[in-house]
């Protein structure tokens, strides 16, 4: 589906010439290493012994009863560090190690990718710097402490909306200033080869779903910030019978002016060196997004999803802050699982659909909710 860094019209590497040697070096390293058996063995043994994969595909009986369908949760929340992000950071850190890199740069929104990067770096003994929006540092405090304990340097991004977009800008600028470092991006965004590479490392999710379910599901539902957990959950089901549903953050409502529903509100453009959909005004200025969930509070989306959207191979919907909070509470009370706010958006989609009793529905539960307890306490009056 991908040709020279493009998914249909979307993708590419719109980088300043200064970054070209870095990006070319990375493209070559990924192409060479990802096909080597030794590399794959190293990656998969880490996923098994360190992350705890395969993660369970849990048949949620109480939810199933509530929604009148066969509902399964892909338990990425049970990964070491508490989200799917670690699948990607371990893949990339092995790449960085093979490339002889001695420093890692990363951006983070919810802090899950930052924690997963700091974890991988601690494991491989590589120093790392994580850029995080000032607003996110405040709302995801537990993850900031975890990153620091893991030895990462956390740098506040103070420009723009002070969230994930700005953290990514700062990380890319840091990379320009430090071309010897490895930039470990956290989603299926950024210049080629990142979208393809991150999707590849995350594809283990759908690979496992396929084996665990032993049949083709009717629906796969995943939340979409940049789109990495969705890419991983969709990967082996693209072009199958399965209906793929990506759930964006509507914030206070798609038309409220405080939203992060990129495909609903955006138009094609170049953000973070990739041509995809993005939220922008008629002069191409990037709009500030809003979501209660730091991991979905992003005005762009990976080029794979732009392509799936345009070709109708996946559907995209948007869930509001309030709907996500309600769904988080519902999942917690019905199944005893506190989801990440990001994943709660995917859960909320269930309420928007009507199912046949035999329908098999897989929801990718991308992460656990520990990091969001202060938000839950505040909005759920705990």
């Amino acid at each position, binding site marked *: 589906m991908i040709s020279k860094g493009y998914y249909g019209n979307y993708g*590419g*590497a*719109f*980088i*300043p*010439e*200064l970054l*070209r*040697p870095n990006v070319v070096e990375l493209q070559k390293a990924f192409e060479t290493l990802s096909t080597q058996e030794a590399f794959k063995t190293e990656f998969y043994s880490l996923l098994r012994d360190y992350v705890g994969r395969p993660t369970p595909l849990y048949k949620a009986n109480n939810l199933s009863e509530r929604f009148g369908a066969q509902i399964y949760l892909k338990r990425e929340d049970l990964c070491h560090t508490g989200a799917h992000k670690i699948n990607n950071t371990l893949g990339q850190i092995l790449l960085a190690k093979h490339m002889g890199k001695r420093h890692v740069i990363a951006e983070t929104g919810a802090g899950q990718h930052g924690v997963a990067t700091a974890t991988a770096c601690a494991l491989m003994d590589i120093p790392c710097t994580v850029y995080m929006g000032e607003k996110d540092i405040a709302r995801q405090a537990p993850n900031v402490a975890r990153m620091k304990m893991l030895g990462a340097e956390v740098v506040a991004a103070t*420009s*723009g909306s002070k969230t994930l*977009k700005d953290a990514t*800008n700062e990380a*890319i*600028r840091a990379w*320009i*200033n*430090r*071309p010897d470092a490895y930039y470990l991006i956290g989603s299926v965004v950024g210049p080629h080869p990142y979208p393809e590479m991150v999707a590849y490392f995350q594809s283990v999710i759908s690979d496992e779903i396929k084996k665990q379910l032993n049949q083709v599901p009717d629906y796969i539902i995943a939340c979409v910030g940049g789109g990495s957990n969705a890419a991983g959950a969709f990967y082996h089901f693209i072009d199958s019978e399965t209906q793929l549903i990506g759930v964006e953050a509507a914030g206070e409502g798609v038309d409220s002016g405080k939203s992060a529903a990129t495909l609903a509100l955006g*138009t094609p*453009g*170049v*953000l*973070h*060196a990739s041509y995809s959909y*993005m939220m*922008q005004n*008629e*002069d*191409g*200025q*990037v709009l500030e997004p809003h979501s209660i969930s730091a991991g979905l509070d992003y005005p762009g989306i990976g080029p794979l999803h732009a392509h799936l959207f345009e070709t109708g191979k996946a559907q995209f919907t948007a869930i509001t802050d309030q709907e996500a909070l309600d769904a988080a509470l519902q999942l917690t009370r019905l199944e005893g699982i506190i989801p990440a706010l990001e994943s709660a958006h995917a859960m909320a989609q269930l309420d928007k659909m009507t199912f046949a009793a035999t329908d098999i529905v897989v929801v990718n539960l991308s992460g656990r909710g520990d990091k969001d307890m202060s938000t839950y306490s505040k909005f759920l009056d705990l």
Partner: protein
Amino acid sequence: MKRKLLNIYFTAGYPKLDSTIEILKTLDEAEVDFIEVGIPYSDPLADGPTIQESSHRALKNGINIETIFGQLRRYKCSFSELIIMAYYNSVLTFGMGRFLKECKEAGIKSLIIPDLPLEEYQVRHQADFLRYGVSPVFLVSPSTETERIELLANNSQPFLYVVSSSSTTGTSSKLEIDREFFENLNALDLPVPCLTGFNISDKESFERATKFTDGGIIGSAFIRCIGAQGNLKSNIQTFISNFKS
């Protein structure tokens, strides 16, 4: 020794929405060779804090692309050659054809798009550039291989933009010159002049930066000059005369 070419960058709409014409006029009268007009962008990836801040302020002042072209059409330089610097998304969303047409009407013959690689330019936009008589200016850095430098120089008009070291603009207060790179560059027989840019802040760093090239580009230091207290025109005159003395 040949006189070094001087290129001054400023962000349109900064410090005030309507500062553009006064800045242009003062620079033109001071006989600056090239004036690079920056189109402010919300997410200027290749820029350091000074230009980020000026872009942010300019956008707050309400500047947009149409207003900028309106300003540029109102003042015709008699000495300086105008160049536009814009991020790819600004141009793309405005419409490449429409943007180039505006350039042509404002008498602008070259355009720097720092995040548009040569290959994408050639496939997607070269025909439009030719149609409107506009040329791209490409950047190279000490990490660009010789063959690619030649390729980029062959496609660049009226000069090749040589970044002094791998950095965002105005990030370091110390200009570092990779002597070996610049000597090699100097030895190449390139069809266009080379101008050194990034982290030039005063006469001393200008001289060091242009020792092996045909001139230099000053951005962040000039932004600090126009953002400073006092009379805009005399601030600019003093700033330029320091470089020209």
